[in-house]
Protein backbone atom coordinates (compact mmCIF):
# COMPACT_ATOMS: atom_id res chain seq x y z
CA UNK A 1 0.00 0.00 0.00
CA UNK A 2 1.20 3.36 -0.90
CA UNK A 3 1.60 5.94 1.81
CA UNK A 4 -1.31 8.14 2.73
CA UNK A 5 -1.67 11.88 2.36
CA UNK A 6 -4.13 14.41 3.64
CA UNK A 7 -7.02 15.37 1.38
CA UNK A 8 -9.52 18.14 1.98
CA UNK A 9 -12.47 18.76 -0.30
CA UNK A 10 -14.40 21.95 0.38
CA UNK A 11 -17.73 22.59 -1.34
CA UNK A 12 -19.75 25.77 -1.01
CA UNK A 13 -22.15 24.31 1.52
CA UNK A 14 -19.89 22.02 3.55
CA UNK A 15 -16.52 20.37 3.96
CA UNK A 16 -17.07 17.25 1.89
CA UNK A 17 -14.05 15.27 3.01
CA UNK A 18 -11.23 15.94 5.42
CA UNK A 19 -8.98 12.96 5.98
CA UNK A 20 -6.33 10.58 4.74
CA UNK A 21 -6.29 9.04 1.31
CA UNK A 22 -3.98 6.91 -0.77
CA UNK A 23 -4.71 8.14 -4.26
CA UNK A 24 -6.98 10.80 -5.73
CA UNK A 25 -8.22 10.72 -9.31
CA UNK A 26 -9.97 13.74 -10.78
CA UNK A 27 -11.04 14.93 -14.22
CA UNK A 28 -8.57 17.43 -15.64
CA UNK A 29 -8.91 19.53 -18.74
CA UNK A 30 -7.41 16.89 -21.03
CA UNK A 31 -8.32 13.68 -19.24
CA UNK A 32 -8.15 12.22 -15.78
CA UNK A 33 -5.29 12.95 -13.44
CA UNK A 34 -4.17 11.10 -10.35
CA UNK A 35 -2.40 12.46 -7.32
CA UNK A 36 -0.49 10.27 -4.90
CA UNK A 37 1.62 11.13 -1.91
CA UNK A 38 4.71 13.31 -2.49
CA UNK A 39 3.22 14.84 -5.60
CA UNK A 40 4.85 17.94 -6.97
CA UNK A 41 3.51 21.21 -5.60
CA UNK A 42 1.07 22.68 -8.11
CA UNK A 43 -2.31 24.26 -8.76
CA UNK A 44 -4.64 22.82 -11.33
CA UNK A 45 -8.15 22.99 -12.67
CA UNK A 46 -10.76 20.35 -11.87
CA UNK A 47 -13.47 19.92 -14.46
CA UNK A 48 -17.07 18.95 -13.86
CA UNK A 49 -17.23 15.21 -13.45
CA UNK A 50 -16.51 12.36 -11.13
CA UNK A 51 -13.64 12.18 -8.67
CA UNK A 52 -12.64 9.12 -6.72
CA UNK A 53 -10.18 8.54 -3.94
CA UNK A 54 -9.02 5.48 -2.07
CA UNK A 55 -9.68 5.50 1.65
CA UNK A 56 -7.24 4.06 4.15
CA UNK A 57 -9.23 0.82 4.32
CA UNK A 58 -8.74 0.26 0.60
CA UNK A 59 -12.29 1.08 -0.51
CA UNK A 60 -12.97 3.70 -3.16
CA UNK A 61 -15.07 6.75 -2.47
CA UNK A 62 -16.78 8.24 -5.50
CA UNK A 63 -18.13 11.74 -5.69
CA UNK A 64 -19.60 14.04 -8.30
CA UNK A 65 -17.84 17.35 -8.38
CA UNK A 66 -18.49 20.62 -10.16
CA UNK A 67 -15.63 22.70 -11.46
CA UNK A 68 -13.00 23.96 -9.09
CA UNK A 69 -9.34 24.14 -8.28
CA UNK A 70 -6.96 21.61 -6.80
CA UNK A 71 -3.82 22.59 -4.92
CA UNK A 72 -1.00 20.39 -3.66
CA UNK A 73 0.99 21.82 -0.77
CA UNK A 74 4.69 21.28 -0.01
CA UNK A 75 3.88 18.77 2.73
CA UNK A 76 1.95 16.63 0.25
CA UNK A 77 -1.51 17.52 1.50
CA UNK A 78 -4.06 18.33 -1.16
CA UNK A 79 -7.03 20.67 -1.19
CA UNK A 80 -9.89 20.84 -3.66
CA UNK A 81 -12.15 23.86 -3.71
CA UNK A 82 -15.31 23.36 -5.73
CA UNK A 83 -18.83 24.74 -5.92
CA UNK A 84 -20.43 21.43 -5.11
CA UNK A 85 -19.42 17.90 -4.30
CA UNK A 86 -21.86 15.09 -3.69
CA UNK A 87 -21.83 11.37 -3.13
CA UNK A 88 -23.66 9.42 -5.85
CA UNK A 89 -26.33 8.27 -3.39
CA UNK A 90 -27.07 11.86 -2.37
CA UNK A 91 -27.95 12.95 -5.86
CA UNK A 92 -31.54 13.68 -6.58
CA UNK A 93 -31.88 12.12 -10.03
CA UNK A 94 -35.20 13.71 -10.58
CA UNK A 95 -33.87 17.18 -9.92
CA UNK A 96 -30.81 16.60 -12.07
CA UNK A 97 -32.97 15.33 -14.93
CA UNK A 98 -35.13 18.42 -14.63
CA UNK A 99 -32.08 20.67 -14.62
CA UNK A 100 -30.72 18.93 -17.70
CA UNK A 101 -33.94 19.43 -19.59
CA UNK A 102 -34.13 23.04 -18.54
CA UNK A 103 -30.57 23.64 -19.65
CA UNK A 104 -31.21 21.92 -22.97
CA UNK A 105 -34.24 24.05 -23.59
CA UNK A 106 -32.31 27.20 -22.81
CA UNK A 107 -29.49 26.15 -25.11
CA UNK A 108 -31.88 25.98 -28.01
CA UNK A 109 -32.99 29.54 -27.59
CA UNK A 110 -31.01 32.41 -28.85
CA UNK A 111 -28.90 33.58 -25.97
CA UNK A 112 -26.24 36.01 -25.07
CA UNK A 113 -22.76 34.67 -24.59
CA UNK A 114 -22.97 34.74 -20.80
CA UNK A 115 -26.28 32.94 -20.77
CA UNK A 116 -24.87 30.36 -23.14
CA UNK A 117 -21.94 29.68 -20.87
CA UNK A 118 -24.12 29.42 -17.80
CA UNK A 119 -26.47 26.97 -19.51
CA UNK A 120 -23.52 25.03 -20.80
CA UNK A 121 -22.09 24.69 -17.31
CA UNK A 122 -25.51 23.81 -15.90
CA UNK A 123 -25.87 21.08 -18.45
CA UNK A 124 -22.43 19.65 -17.72
CA UNK A 125 -23.22 19.55 -14.02
CA UNK A 126 -26.57 17.89 -14.52
CA UNK A 127 -25.08 15.27 -16.83
CA UNK A 128 -22.25 14.51 -14.42
CA UNK A 129 -24.74 14.02 -11.62
CA UNK A 130 -26.94 11.72 -13.65
CA UNK A 131 -23.95 9.69 -14.79
CA UNK A 132 -22.66 9.32 -11.26
CA UNK A 133 -26.04 8.34 -9.92
CA UNK A 134 -26.72 5.81 -12.66
CA UNK A 135 -23.39 4.04 -12.19
CA UNK A 136 -24.31 3.19 -8.65
CA UNK A 137 -27.37 1.23 -9.70
Amino acid at each position, binding site marked *: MASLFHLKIVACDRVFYDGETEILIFPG*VDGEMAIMNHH*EVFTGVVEVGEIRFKLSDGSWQHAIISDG*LVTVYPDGST*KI*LAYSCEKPEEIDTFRAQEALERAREQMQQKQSR*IEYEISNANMARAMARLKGASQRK
Partner: protein
Amino acid sequence: MASTKEIQKRINSIQDTMKITRAMYMMSSMKLRKAKQKLEDTEPFFIGTQVGIAENLAHFPDIRHIYFDNRIEDEQEVKKRRGFIVFTGDKGMAGAYNHNAIKLAEERVANLSRDEYQLFVVGEVGRAYFKNNGYNVDESFVFSSNNPSMHRARLIAEYMIDLYNREELDHIDVIYTKMLNSVTEETCVERLLPLKTHKFLKEQAKEITEDVEGTSKAALELKEGTKHVHSISSYELEAIQNGGDSWYPFYPSLKTVLEKLVHNHFTGFIYGAMVECFASEENARMMAMQSATDNAEAILHELSIEFNRVRQAQITQEITEVIGGAKALKKKKKSKR
Protein backbone atom coordinates in the same frame (compact mmCIF):
# COMPACT_ATOMS: atom_id res chain seq x y z
CA MET B 1 -55.58 65.48 30.14
CA ALA B 2 -56.86 63.14 27.45
CA SER B 3 -60.12 61.37 27.97
CA THR B 4 -60.29 57.65 28.72
CA LYS B 5 -61.65 56.99 25.28
CA GLU B 6 -58.66 58.59 23.58
CA ILE B 7 -56.19 56.73 25.77
CA GLN B 8 -57.99 53.48 25.19
CA LYS B 9 -57.75 54.04 21.46
CA ARG B 10 -54.03 54.61 21.69
CA ILE B 11 -53.52 51.54 23.81
CA ASN B 12 -55.35 49.45 21.26
CA SER B 13 -53.36 50.79 18.36
CA ILE B 14 -50.06 50.18 20.17
CA GLN B 15 -51.14 46.68 21.01
CA ASP B 16 -51.85 46.04 17.35
CA THR B 17 -48.46 47.38 16.33
CA MET B 18 -46.85 45.25 18.98
CA LYS B 19 -48.49 42.18 17.54
CA ILE B 20 -46.90 42.95 14.19
CA THR B 21 -43.44 43.65 15.56
CA ARG B 22 -43.61 40.53 17.66
CA ALA B 23 -44.60 38.42 14.67
CA MET B 24 -41.80 39.95 12.62
CA TYR B 25 -39.39 39.23 15.43
CA MET B 26 -40.40 35.59 15.43
CA MET B 27 -40.10 35.35 11.68
CA SER B 28 -36.68 36.91 11.50
CA SER B 29 -35.42 34.81 14.38
CA MET B 30 -36.45 31.71 12.42
CA LYS B 31 -34.85 33.02 9.28
CA LEU B 32 -31.76 33.99 11.22
CA ARG B 33 -31.36 30.45 12.46
CA LYS B 34 -31.52 29.20 8.89
CA ALA B 35 -29.12 31.87 7.71
CA LYS B 36 -26.68 31.16 10.52
CA GLN B 37 -26.66 27.50 9.59
CA LYS B 38 -25.97 28.41 6.00
CA LEU B 39 -23.26 30.80 7.07
CA GLU B 40 -21.60 28.10 9.11
CA ASP B 41 -21.79 25.65 6.22
CA THR B 42 -20.33 28.03 3.74
CA GLU B 43 -17.65 29.53 5.96
CA PRO B 44 -14.92 26.99 5.04
CA PHE B 45 -15.60 27.63 1.39
CA PHE B 46 -15.72 31.42 1.77
CA ILE B 47 -12.44 31.49 3.68
CA GLY B 48 -11.04 28.78 1.43
CA THR B 49 -11.51 30.81 -1.73
CA GLN B 50 -9.87 33.83 -0.13
CA VAL B 51 -6.93 31.76 1.13
CA GLY B 52 -6.76 30.00 -2.23
CA ILE B 53 -6.53 33.17 -4.25
CA ALA B 54 -4.01 34.64 -1.83
CA GLU B 55 -1.80 31.58 -2.11
CA ASN B 56 -1.98 31.53 -5.85
CA LEU B 57 -1.35 35.23 -6.20
CA ALA B 58 1.75 34.78 -4.11
CA HIS B 59 3.02 32.31 -6.68
CA PHE B 60 1.98 33.99 -9.88
CA PRO B 61 4.88 35.38 -11.80
CA ASP B 62 4.67 38.99 -12.87
CA ILE B 63 2.67 38.88 -16.04
CA ARG B 64 0.59 41.35 -17.92
CA HIS B 65 -3.01 40.28 -17.94
CA ILE B 66 -6.38 41.91 -17.95
CA TYR B 67 -7.11 40.52 -14.50
CA PHE B 68 -4.17 42.40 -13.06
CA ASP B 69 -4.01 46.12 -12.82
CA ASN B 70 -1.22 46.40 -15.35
CA ARG B 71 -2.80 46.38 -18.77
CA ILE B 72 -1.01 48.24 -21.51
CA GLU B 73 -3.87 50.73 -21.69
CA ASP B 74 -3.66 51.44 -17.98
CA GLU B 75 -0.84 53.85 -18.40
CA GLN B 76 -2.75 55.83 -20.99
CA GLU B 77 -6.17 55.72 -19.43
CA VAL B 78 -6.98 58.83 -17.49
CA LYS B 79 -10.45 57.94 -16.44
CA LYS B 80 -11.17 54.79 -14.47
CA ARG B 81 -14.65 53.37 -14.38
CA ARG B 82 -15.47 51.83 -11.06
CA GLY B 83 -18.18 49.30 -10.45
CA PHE B 84 -19.62 48.89 -6.99
CA ILE B 85 -21.68 45.88 -6.05
CA VAL B 86 -23.76 47.03 -3.09
CA PHE B 87 -25.61 44.50 -0.99
CA THR B 88 -28.77 45.77 0.68
CA GLY B 89 -31.94 44.10 1.87
CA ASP B 90 -35.18 43.54 0.03
CA LYS B 91 -37.20 45.04 2.83
CA GLY B 92 -36.79 47.81 5.34
CA MET B 93 -37.51 47.60 9.06
CA ALA B 94 -34.05 46.24 9.71
CA GLY B 95 -32.60 48.96 11.88
CA ALA B 96 -29.53 50.61 10.45
CA TYR B 97 -28.63 47.65 8.25
CA ASN B 98 -29.65 49.11 4.89
CA HIS B 99 -28.64 52.59 5.88
CA ASN B 100 -25.08 51.56 6.72
CA ALA B 101 -24.51 49.90 3.37
CA ILE B 102 -26.05 52.84 1.50
CA LYS B 103 -24.00 55.34 3.46
CA LEU B 104 -20.76 53.54 2.70
CA ALA B 105 -21.60 53.34 -0.99
CA GLU B 106 -22.44 57.05 -1.03
CA GLU B 107 -19.12 57.85 0.59
CA ARG B 108 -17.31 55.86 -2.06
CA VAL B 109 -18.92 57.56 -5.01
CA ALA B 110 -19.14 61.03 -3.47
CA ASN B 111 -16.13 62.41 -5.33
CA LEU B 112 -16.79 60.67 -8.62
CA SER B 113 -18.69 62.06 -11.54
CA ARG B 114 -21.55 60.09 -13.03
CA ASP B 115 -19.56 58.46 -15.79
CA GLU B 116 -16.78 57.38 -13.46
CA TYR B 117 -18.77 54.85 -11.53
CA GLN B 118 -21.70 52.55 -11.78
CA LEU B 119 -23.65 50.96 -8.97
CA PHE B 120 -24.83 47.39 -9.09
CA VAL B 121 -27.32 47.03 -6.30
CA VAL B 122 -28.56 43.78 -4.88
CA GLY B 123 -31.78 44.15 -2.92
CA GLU B 124 -34.86 46.26 -3.44
CA VAL B 125 -34.30 48.90 -0.76
CA GLY B 126 -30.91 50.01 -2.02
CA ARG B 127 -32.00 49.93 -5.63
CA ALA B 128 -34.99 52.15 -4.99
CA TYR B 129 -32.91 54.56 -2.94
CA PHE B 130 -30.10 54.97 -5.44
CA LYS B 131 -32.46 55.23 -8.36
CA ASN B 132 -34.59 57.89 -6.72
CA ASN B 133 -31.59 59.93 -5.70
CA GLY B 134 -30.19 60.10 -9.19
CA TYR B 135 -27.19 57.84 -8.86
CA ASN B 136 -25.82 55.96 -11.82
CA VAL B 137 -27.38 52.54 -11.29
CA ASP B 138 -27.29 49.66 -13.74
CA GLU B 139 -30.98 49.08 -14.32
CA SER B 140 -30.65 45.65 -15.84
CA PHE B 141 -28.88 44.35 -12.77
CA VAL B 142 -31.84 43.10 -10.77
CA PHE B 143 -31.21 40.55 -8.08
CA SER B 144 -32.97 39.85 -4.84
CA SER B 145 -31.04 39.45 -1.63
CA ASN B 146 -33.49 37.02 -0.10
CA ASN B 147 -32.50 33.37 0.23
CA PRO B 148 -29.05 33.42 -1.35
CA SER B 149 -28.27 30.67 -3.81
CA MET B 150 -25.21 29.55 -5.68
CA HIS B 151 -27.08 30.01 -8.93
CA ARG B 152 -27.69 33.69 -8.28
CA ALA B 153 -24.07 34.17 -7.23
CA ARG B 154 -22.98 32.61 -10.50
CA LEU B 155 -25.25 34.90 -12.50
CA ILE B 156 -23.92 37.97 -10.73
CA ALA B 157 -20.31 36.85 -11.13
CA GLU B 158 -20.68 36.12 -14.84
CA TYR B 159 -22.43 39.42 -15.41
CA MET B 160 -19.73 41.42 -13.66
CA ILE B 161 -16.75 39.55 -15.10
CA ASP B 162 -18.19 39.98 -18.56
CA LEU B 163 -18.43 43.75 -18.03
CA TYR B 164 -14.88 43.75 -16.75
CA ASN B 165 -13.57 41.77 -19.70
CA ARG B 166 -15.28 44.11 -22.12
CA GLU B 167 -13.40 46.87 -20.30
CA GLU B 168 -16.52 48.71 -19.35
CA LEU B 169 -15.34 48.58 -15.78
CA ASP B 170 -11.79 48.97 -14.53
CA HIS B 171 -12.38 48.20 -10.88
CA ILE B 172 -14.96 46.10 -9.17
CA ASP B 173 -15.53 46.60 -5.46
CA VAL B 174 -18.04 44.87 -3.27
CA ILE B 175 -19.81 46.59 -0.38
CA TYR B 176 -21.34 44.10 1.98
CA THR B 177 -22.16 43.62 5.63
CA LYS B 178 -20.26 41.12 7.67
CA MET B 179 -21.61 39.56 10.83
CA LEU B 180 -18.87 39.67 13.45
CA ASN B 181 -21.01 38.16 16.20
CA SER B 182 -24.66 38.18 17.08
CA VAL B 183 -24.64 41.84 18.15
CA THR B 184 -22.05 43.55 15.96
CA GLU B 185 -22.13 43.92 12.24
CA GLU B 186 -19.64 45.64 10.04
CA THR B 187 -19.99 47.06 6.57
CA CYS B 188 -16.92 46.27 4.49
CA VAL B 189 -15.48 47.04 1.11
CA GLU B 190 -13.46 44.52 -0.81
CA ARG B 191 -11.87 44.79 -4.22
CA LEU B 192 -12.49 41.74 -6.36
CA LEU B 193 -10.95 42.88 -9.61
CA PRO B 194 -8.29 43.61 -10.69
CA LEU B 195 -6.21 41.23 -8.65
CA LYS B 196 -3.21 42.38 -6.73
CA THR B 197 0.09 41.66 -8.40
CA HIS B 198 2.82 39.58 -6.90
CA LYS B 199 5.11 42.56 -6.79
CA PHE B 200 2.61 44.66 -4.89
CA LEU B 201 1.94 41.91 -2.36
CA LYS B 202 5.62 41.41 -1.77
CA GLU B 203 6.27 45.08 -1.19
CA GLN B 204 3.40 45.37 1.26
CA ALA B 205 4.41 42.23 3.12
CA LYS B 206 7.96 43.46 3.34
CA GLU B 207 6.80 46.73 4.78
CA ILE B 208 4.76 44.99 7.43
CA THR B 209 7.40 42.48 8.47
CA GLU B 210 10.14 45.07 8.57
CA ASP B 211 8.56 47.45 10.97
CA VAL B 212 8.30 45.95 14.41
CA GLU B 213 6.12 48.59 15.99
CA GLY B 214 3.36 48.15 13.46
CA THR B 215 3.15 51.83 12.67
CA SER B 216 3.61 51.75 8.90
CA LYS B 217 0.73 52.46 6.58
CA ALA B 218 0.39 48.90 5.38
CA ALA B 219 0.43 47.44 8.89
CA LEU B 220 -2.16 49.91 10.10
CA GLU B 221 -4.39 49.11 7.20
CA LEU B 222 -4.04 45.41 7.85
CA LYS B 223 -5.07 45.93 11.46
CA GLU B 224 -8.03 48.04 10.51
CA GLY B 225 -9.24 45.21 8.36
CA THR B 226 -11.36 45.56 5.32
CA LYS B 227 -11.94 49.28 5.19
CA HIS B 228 -9.28 49.79 2.56
CA VAL B 229 -9.33 48.24 -0.86
CA HIS B 230 -5.64 48.77 -1.45
CA SER B 231 -4.35 47.10 1.66
CA ILE B 232 -3.53 43.43 1.82
CA SER B 233 -5.43 40.96 3.94
CA SER B 234 -3.98 38.67 6.55
CA TYR B 235 -4.40 35.68 4.22
CA GLU B 236 -2.25 37.33 1.62
CA LEU B 237 0.39 38.26 4.15
CA GLU B 238 0.52 34.69 5.36
CA ALA B 239 0.75 33.29 1.86
CA ILE B 240 3.63 35.59 0.98
CA GLN B 241 5.45 34.71 4.14
CA ASN B 242 5.04 30.99 3.50
CA GLY B 243 7.51 31.02 0.67
CA GLY B 244 5.73 33.18 -1.83
CA ASP B 245 8.69 33.48 -4.12
CA SER B 246 9.03 29.86 -5.08
CA TRP B 247 7.37 29.37 -8.42
CA TYR B 248 5.29 26.33 -9.00
CA PRO B 249 3.65 24.78 -12.02
CA PHE B 250 0.08 25.43 -13.04
CA TYR B 251 -1.94 22.79 -14.80
CA PRO B 252 -2.93 22.88 -17.63
CA SER B 253 -1.66 26.42 -18.07
CA LEU B 254 -1.25 29.61 -16.16
CA LYS B 255 -3.95 31.31 -18.16
CA THR B 256 -6.57 28.63 -17.63
CA VAL B 257 -5.88 28.51 -13.93
CA LEU B 258 -6.04 32.27 -13.68
CA GLU B 259 -9.35 32.33 -15.52
CA LYS B 260 -10.80 29.63 -13.30
CA LEU B 261 -9.38 31.22 -10.20
CA VAL B 262 -10.97 34.56 -10.97
CA HIS B 263 -14.36 32.98 -11.71
CA ASN B 264 -14.22 30.76 -8.64
CA HIS B 265 -13.07 33.52 -6.38
CA PHE B 266 -15.63 35.96 -7.69
CA THR B 267 -18.53 33.54 -7.45
CA GLY B 268 -17.40 32.22 -4.10
CA PHE B 269 -17.01 35.70 -2.75
CA ILE B 270 -20.38 36.88 -4.00
CA TYR B 271 -22.05 33.82 -2.55
CA GLY B 272 -20.29 34.27 0.76
CA ALA B 273 -21.15 37.96 0.83
CA MET B 274 -24.80 37.19 0.07
CA VAL B 275 -25.00 34.68 2.88
CA GLU B 276 -23.28 37.08 5.28
CA CYS B 277 -25.65 39.86 4.26
CA PHE B 278 -28.70 37.67 4.59
CA ALA B 279 -27.69 36.70 8.10
CA SER B 280 -26.82 40.28 9.03
CA GLU B 281 -30.09 41.58 7.68
CA GLU B 282 -32.17 39.11 9.62
CA ASN B 283 -30.08 39.75 12.68
CA ALA B 284 -30.53 43.50 12.35
CA ARG B 285 -34.26 43.09 11.80
CA MET B 286 -34.56 40.80 14.77
CA MET B 287 -32.83 43.30 17.02
CA ALA B 288 -34.86 46.20 15.64
CA MET B 289 -38.09 44.32 16.21
CA GLN B 290 -36.98 43.30 19.67
CA SER B 291 -36.40 46.89 20.67
CA ALA B 292 -39.65 47.96 19.00
CA THR B 293 -41.56 45.42 21.05
CA ASP B 294 -39.75 46.54 24.20
CA ASN B 295 -40.59 50.15 23.47
CA ALA B 296 -44.21 49.30 22.84
CA GLU B 297 -44.35 47.53 26.17
CA ALA B 298 -42.87 50.55 27.95
CA ILE B 299 -45.39 52.89 26.33
CA LEU B 300 -48.24 50.55 27.17
CA HIS B 301 -47.14 50.52 30.78
CA GLU B 302 -47.14 54.30 30.96
CA LEU B 303 -50.44 54.56 29.15
CA SER B 304 -52.15 52.06 31.40
CA ILE B 305 -51.08 54.08 34.46
CA GLU B 306 -52.36 57.23 32.86
CA PHE B 307 -55.56 55.48 31.85
CA ASN B 308 -56.20 54.35 35.42
CA ARG B 309 -55.46 57.78 36.78
CA VAL B 310 -57.88 59.44 34.38
CA ARG B 311 -60.56 56.87 35.12
CA GLN B 312 -60.15 57.37 38.84
CA ALA B 313 -60.30 61.13 38.46
CA GLN B 314 -63.49 60.74 36.47
CA ILE B 315 -65.09 58.53 39.09
CA THR B 316 -64.09 60.90 41.85
CA GLN B 317 -65.57 63.75 39.93
CA GLU B 318 -68.82 61.89 39.34
CA ILE B 319 -69.10 61.02 43.01
CA THR B 320 -68.53 64.59 44.08
CA GLU B 321 -71.14 65.69 41.59
CA VAL B 322 -73.65 63.16 42.92
CA ILE B 323 -72.92 64.13 46.51
CA GLY B 324 -73.12 67.80 45.68
CA GLY B 325 -76.44 67.26 43.92
CA ALA B 326 -77.82 65.25 46.83
CA LYS B 327 -76.76 67.91 49.34
CA ALA B 328 -78.40 70.64 47.33
CA LEU B 329 -81.63 68.64 47.18
CA LYS B 330 -81.52 68.09 50.97
CA LYS B 331 -81.08 71.79 51.60
CA LYS B 332 -84.01 72.58 49.34
CA LYS B 333 -86.27 70.13 51.21
CA LYS B 334 -85.20 71.57 54.59
CA SER B 335 -85.91 75.13 53.59
CA LYS B 336 -89.38 74.16 52.23
CA ARG B 337 -90.33 72.66 55.57
